[in-house]
């Protein structure tokens, strides 16, 4: 199997600040490569270089065997790009937006129409086809944007945080579309801040932090490095958290530190079977539990496990979930 994307040693500086500091990555043809990282980690810069929108200061990248700097036109013939913001014209209708792209790509009038109708139907936008995009919901706009990037039947698709800001229903729909594309042989490069999304879609993962690759592997490999699940515990009386932390530490064998002012402890656990034991011991000590849960590790926790420190730049979403 050949590689659809191969990048080596990509470096990019903005005003003296290193956005990318030697990024290597490869995407196997017909698979989904997930690029995971917090805001400012270099995900978008990487995508922009691979989409020929930015020139790297050092390093080189090939897409479909073509050099992104020397043969940008050939690269553009292969790719579709969906950025973080829906890049569609709000004043125009869904149909007008897609027909315009089709015509730009050299399709005839009839072919452009046919392709537009087909895509609108596939993305559930047929009813809204002749309405201006400004009347669309956020999810519809994203779908139209994705449709626009598919007009030319790209063999490589870049999705830069495609589900940020979408409700769960729209997000699931989008995931379905991505899976369908992969079934058809399209190679997808997906950036995301959400571990769950990467887990759902990606065959391989690259984790970026401060413009460097800090980890790579399959989602399974990555999660096992961070612990399969996280046990989170809040005591009814915050003053007893320290005591509860000791119990969790004793049961799971993972060190637990409770700083003054903490409201909860979170510990990676390999085996969900520890939960009843924790509950029993808390009960023995007469500690009232405010909240006790087992969940998948968040991106923050993966970062903590991978780097030994928390991700520095949070989005509001992550703050809310943490």
């Amino acid at each position, binding site marked *: 199997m050949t590689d659809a994307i191969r990048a080596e040693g990509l470096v990019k500086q903005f005003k003296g600040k290193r956005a990318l500091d030697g990024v290597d990555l490869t995407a196997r043809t017909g698979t989904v490569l997930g690029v995971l990282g917090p805001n400012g980690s270099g995900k978008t810069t990487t995508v922009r270089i691979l989409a*020929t929108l930015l020139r790297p200061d050092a390093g080189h990248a090939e897409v479909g065997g073509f050099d992104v700097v020397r043969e940008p036109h050939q690269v553009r*013939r292969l790719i579709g790009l969906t950025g973080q*913001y*829906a890049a569609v014209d709000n*004043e125009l209708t869904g149909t007008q937006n897609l027909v315009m792209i089709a015509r730009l790509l050299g399709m005839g009038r009839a072919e452009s129409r046919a392709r537009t109708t087909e895509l609108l139907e596939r993305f559930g936008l047929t009813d809204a086809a002749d309405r201006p995009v400004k009347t669309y919901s956020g999810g519809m706009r994203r779908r139209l944007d994705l449709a626009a990037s598919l007009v030319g039947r790209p*063999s490589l698709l870049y999705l830069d945080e495609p589900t940020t800001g979408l409700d769960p229903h729209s997000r699931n729909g989008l995931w379905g579309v991505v899976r369908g594309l992969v079934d058809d042989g399209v190679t997808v490069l997906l950036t995301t801040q959400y571990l769950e999304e990467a887990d759902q879609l990606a065959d391989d993962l690259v984790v970026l932090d401060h413009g460097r690759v800090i980890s790579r592997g399959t989602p399974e490999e990555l999660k096992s490095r961070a612990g399969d699940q996280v046990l989170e515990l809040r005591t009814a009386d915050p003053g007893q958290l320290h005591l509860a932390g000791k119990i969790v530490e004793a049961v799971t064998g993972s060190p637990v530190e409770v700083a003054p002012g903490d409201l909860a402890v979170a510990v990676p656990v390999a085996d969900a079977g520890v939960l009843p034991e924790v509950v029993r011991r808390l009960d023995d000590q007469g500690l009232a539990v405010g909240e006790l849960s087992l969940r998948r590790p968040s991106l923050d926790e993966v970062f903590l496990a991978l780097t030994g420190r928390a991700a520095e730049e949070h989005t509001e979403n992550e703050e809310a979930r943490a």
Partner: protein
Amino acid sequence: MSTATTEGAGARTRAQVPERITPLTTIGNGLQLARRSVLKIKANPAEVLGLVLQPFMFVVLFVFVFGEAMMGDWRAYRDFLMPGVIAQSVVFATLGTGFSLSEDVEKGVFDRFRSLPIARSAPLIGAILGDLVRYAITVVMVLLVGLLIGFRPEGGAVGVIGAGLLVLVFAFALCWMSAFVGMIARTPMSVQAFGMILMFPLTFASSAFVSPDDMPGWLRAVAANNPVTHLVDSMRALMLGGDAASPVAWTLVWAAVITAVFFPLAVWAYRRRT
């Protein structure tokens, strides 16, 4: 949303997309994007309203508020003013080029275009061709309002068409300046603010509304050398009669100079902007 099953991605390249960009594809792409600009004008009621109402407002206000005070007779001022108001409306309208380009950058539409296998310059060409349509509409609207209040230019159809073409040539030159501003400004709003600072002196310190002879010495010197003065003088000569040769020549020289300076700057800023 249904799951994809019909996507024929087996085709590794887009058959219809040319291997390389020829001048013909550049023109084709540019025209497609010009069509986009025109569709956007049509789809935006506020813009259509602005295109119609603004000329009406300017002509009516200037003629009836200042007319009697300026020349003792609003009809005389109307005839003097019409070429000036056409020029002023179009010069202000060129701001729209920078504004819409800046908006495209901000919204990520430019990234989409730049990731497509189309001519690099097509978005710029499209924006400017589309805007020329907007300026032509402006010229026609102002003229219609003038005709409505009795403006009967002696230069006849030939003179009016000549003046209209000249102002479009000048607007085409100014477009590049606007595009340059649009590419270097951070937001569409700063394009607007900066443009206003530029456009007010350019149109008011000219012969558009009053003769520079009635201005204080220093301002007269500025106005006499203002390219808009040459433009307005040409249009007056063409529409109302008089010697047009010298001001028309000056106007064309200015248009050429502005284009020579700002076309390369706009293209440079456009390529640099990411």
